[in-house]
């Protein structure tokens, strides 16, 4: 797959001296969904703002579809759609006029049929003549997406698309992103909801304190960094790990069973030895199950390591 966005060595230092980005490198493949995860103040919005032209980088280069984003800004920006984090909309305008305005800004001739299609995709069509101030928060967020899509961009930036929205709308948003992917749009979304990245993304980038800590395929990331746990249910609950098993990293579960933590990727997991030692210690197993750590655990570990 071709690279549609290439960010190289981008730094951003604000006038007050605060360094928001410390040399960010990022490559985005055509058609993928990348979730940029990071705590508040990590530099997610700054990075997006620089790529989209709202803020200027202190140093570094960005190419969008092969165009330099500063020198060939018209070509570069034509390829990008941005859905900002805040609901920034003209309250007195109708949905249709607002979307028409955005399309015009991108130099596209008026095409109400195309806007109708986009509004239908976002379940907004029946609201097209409503004033924006009369819409609910969720609907307003859809209007922002419609405005970002109306010039048919190849890359869509969603800056915290589900911040402060209810569960139902969040699920709707995931569905919309999935539909966009089907139409070939590359999506880059920032979020601090791990669940969201897990549900939507192909790749995940973790950003903290202005640095990208890693960018990896979601599944590989979970697998690579994932700690697994073996849950051992016993016929008689115990309240302490028997002396004979003290060499194993075991803890007692709430039910009085045992939890064994191990690295699934390691050549030797130690499970076979543990099972025979359990029998020798006179413990009787009722059930065994495994549990893989979630992205959230991985994320928390990464950011913690970075802070250390």
């Amino acid at each position, binding site marked *: 797959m071709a690279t549609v966005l290439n960010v190289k060595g981008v730094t951003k230092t604000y006038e007050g001296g605060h360094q928001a980005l410390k040399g960010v490198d990022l490559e985005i493949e055509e058609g993928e969904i990348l979730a940029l995860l990071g705590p508040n103040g990590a530099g997610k919005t700054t990075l997006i703002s620089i790529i989209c032209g*709202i803020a200027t980088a202190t140093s570094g280069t960005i190419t969008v579809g092969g165009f330099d984003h500063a020198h060939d800004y018209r070509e570069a920006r034509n390829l990008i759609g*941005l859905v900002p984090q805040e609901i*920034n909309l003209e309250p*007195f305008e109708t949905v249709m006029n607002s979307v028409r305005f955005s399309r*015009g800004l991108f130099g596209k001739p008026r095409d109400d049929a195309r806007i109708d299609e986009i509004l239908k995709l976002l379940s907004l069509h029946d609201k097209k003549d409503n004033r924006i101030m009369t819409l609910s928060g969720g609907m307003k967020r859809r209007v922002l997406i419609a405005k970002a899509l109306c010039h048919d961009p190849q890359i869509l930036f969603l800056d915290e698309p589900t911040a402060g929205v209810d569960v139902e709308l969040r699920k709707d948003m995931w569905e919309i992103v999935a539909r966009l992917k089907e139409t070939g749009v590359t999506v880059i979304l920032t979020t601090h909801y791990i669940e969201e990245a897990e549900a939507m993304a192909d790749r995940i980038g973790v950003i903290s304190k202005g640095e990208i800590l890693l960018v990896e395929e979601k599944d590989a990331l979970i697998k690579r960094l994932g700690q697994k746990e073996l849950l051992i249910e016993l016929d008689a609950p115990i309240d302490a790990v028997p002396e004979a098993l003290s060499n194993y990293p075991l803890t007692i579960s709430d039910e009085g069973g045992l939890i064994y933590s191990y690295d699934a990727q390691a050549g030797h997991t130690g499970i076979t030895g543990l099972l025979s030692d359990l029998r020798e210690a006179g413990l009787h197993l009722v059930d065994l199950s495994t549990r893989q750590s979630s992205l959230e655990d991985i994320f928390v570990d990464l950011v913690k390591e970075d802070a250390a």
Partner: protein
Amino acid sequence: MNWNAIAAIYRFEMARTFRTLVQSVISPVLSTSLYFIVFGAAIGSRIDQVEGVSYGAFIVPGLIMLTVLTQSTSNASFGIYFPKFIGTVYELLSAPISFFEIVIGYVGAAATKAFMIGLIILITAHFFVDLTIAHPVWMLLFLVLTCISFALLGFIIGIWAGNFEQLQLVPMLVITPLVFLGGSFYSISMLPPVWQTITLFNPVVYLISGFRWAFFGQADVALGWSVAAIVVFMAACLFTIGWIFRTGYKLRS
């Protein structure tokens, strides 16, 4: 040039004008009519003529300038300040448009609206006084140049303003006094000599004088000075806007 973007901004801004028709158009017409009643009829009946022109007619160019200057400044400043205030300015900054195109869109719409109001006041004036325009082409040229220059000034104010109070500050505290003291309701030849000299430092004097010349063929200062004043003012505004866009002042972090 991204003509579609310019047209989009222009149409969007003009739509706001028509949506707020009462506030945008009817209120300047009403206030001008009040000026005619107070200055033209009540006071004017006691003043015979100024420089051979009836007082009612004499104040028409000044009245038009008063409204056009404040309207073009406040329209353009509000036009660019409002997107900053509600946050929609992100769209302008992330769209494939140059700053020059943004200026044409906003300043063009603000100037158009001020020009329309200027013409409406001129038409309204016809109901109160007999008016013949000596140099109609010059009159229109002055009107257009004034609308554009002060819309450029308004655009600068809109970018600079950090709140609504600052937005009102320049039109209220600078432009209105300068217009009132710039000979809108009197000829500067009516002032004592010292004040005549001081008045010459007021740039609006040159605008009103030139505009009045286009109406009646007589001016407080030579026509060349009036043309030069407006050209210099416009150049200064364009230079400032050029600097704003080069540096991203108050627009791009």
